[in-house]
């Protein structure tokens, strides 16, 4: 208990002293997860919207697949990205293994199904009467699609935030493809795992606090966005 208290005190000291190692890790984490969520949104929002708006054979199956992939185990994603990027893998020539780019790729794969599936759900759950109203106002098919997406904008924003939450909290995949190289690929989650295994708790706790705080921010944002989306009389 005493050890924990003193670690906690030193964790706060680290945070307040603007320790460069600590903030380097935080900055890299934000960068990797931020890029990953931008990529996941760029791919996932159109994919989810397409699934919700366009009828084609196999659509149901695609939605089920996406929903299944929402729960992808990070270590499996790590393994697959590792195999693809490893020297003997199909994209090994890029030399990206153990780089931040590889971590972005892994987190993008993890966040994509979440963004796409929740975007799909948000657009699909727009009240049919609102869709009727759009059509009754003389919208063409493409105008109607655009307006339905706009109507679901808060759900889509929530999907992107949820995707960020998934990417930022994940440790298995980035550890495998990033390698946890200090000053290069060490992010908050992998640093916490390492420092804890070393029995060195102060940095781990400081990062844990930051991670918790970010998670709080993400959840508050999510709730605010969902509330706006669910406005009812």
């Amino acid at each position, binding site marked *: 208990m005493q050890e924990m208290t003193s670690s906690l005190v030193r964790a706060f000291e680290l945070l307040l002293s603007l320790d460069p190692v600590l903030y380097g890790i935080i900055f890299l984490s934000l960068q990797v997860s931020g890029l990953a969520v931008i990529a996941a949104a760029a791919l996932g929002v159109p994919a989810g919207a397409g699934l919700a708006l366009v009828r084609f054979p196999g659509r149901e199956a695609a939605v089920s697949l996406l929903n299944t992939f929402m729960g992808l185990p990070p270590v499996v994603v790590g393994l697959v990205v590792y195999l693809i990027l490893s020297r003997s893998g199909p994209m090994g020539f890029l030399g990206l293994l153990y780089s931040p780019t590889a971590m972005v790729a892994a987190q993008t794969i993890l966040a994509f199904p979440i963004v796409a599936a929740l975007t799909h759900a948000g657009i699909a759950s727009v*009240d049919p*009467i*609102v869709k*009727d*109203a*759009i*059509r*009754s*106002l*003389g*919208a*063409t098919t493409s*105008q109607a699609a655009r*307006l339905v997406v706009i*109507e679901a904008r*808060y759900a889509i924003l929530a999907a992107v935030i949820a995707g960020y939450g998934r990417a930022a909290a994940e440790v298995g995949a980035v550890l495998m493809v990033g390698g946890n190289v200090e000053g290069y690929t060490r992010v908050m989650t992998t640093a916490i795992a390492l420092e804890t295994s070393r029995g060195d708790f102060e940095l781990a706790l400081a990062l844990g606090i930051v991670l918790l705080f970010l998670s709080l921010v993400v959840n508050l944002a999510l709730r605010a966005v969902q509330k*706006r*989306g669910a*406005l*009812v*009389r």
Partner: protein
Amino acid sequence: MTLSLSAAGLTKIYDGRAVLDGLDFAFQRGKVHAVIGPNGSGKSTLLRLLSLLDPPTRGTVLFLDGEEPAPADISVRRRMAFVFQRPSLFNTTVLKNVEAGLAIRGRPKRERNDVALDALRRVEMEKMADRNGRTLSGGESQRVALARALAVEPEILFLDEPTANLDPHSVRIIGKAIEKLRDGGRTTILLVTHNMFLAQRLADRVVFLFEGRIVEEGEAAAVIERPRDERTWRFLTGELAG
């Protein structure tokens, strides 16, 4: 010349049952038609087919532009508007809701704003222009939905129980707006309602729908006060079940 509307052999089958059963009818240009009938008699279905929201199983909806047939496509859809039985506003401001049809038609921003505010005044909702449409009461919401329809100056206006569940004040405002439109004489109106006072006050013609067929049709006062068909009589006195 304004658009005219008629149905030829209009049939809609749901789950093997004919909800509309070979309807033939020509609506009168510029007149208000009250469509009455028991719950489930097919009134909403009829409006949805006529407004091209749903396709018929058989038969056709015919539009005439003067004497010329007009194809049932987007250009005809843009000459009609619909107010639904349930609130149907978008999750945005009241003003943007009313501007929606104009934005779809590519009208410039300034003009949109003026026309929308004018439409809101006609339903006495201009003070709520900045409110979110989804936070309105049922009555306010229906008045805005009517303004949204009025803003596009439809030649055919479909109103599916626009006053259901509304208090007398909102009913009066909606009634007044419809009255004004009727007196303009340029809009063909189909008004589904269970409110016989409203039907009698607003409608030129009454169409009585029963089990997917038109049982009786005629001048409003005549049908409501002196129905010829026994089923119409029993419906009006509340003895006819759907």
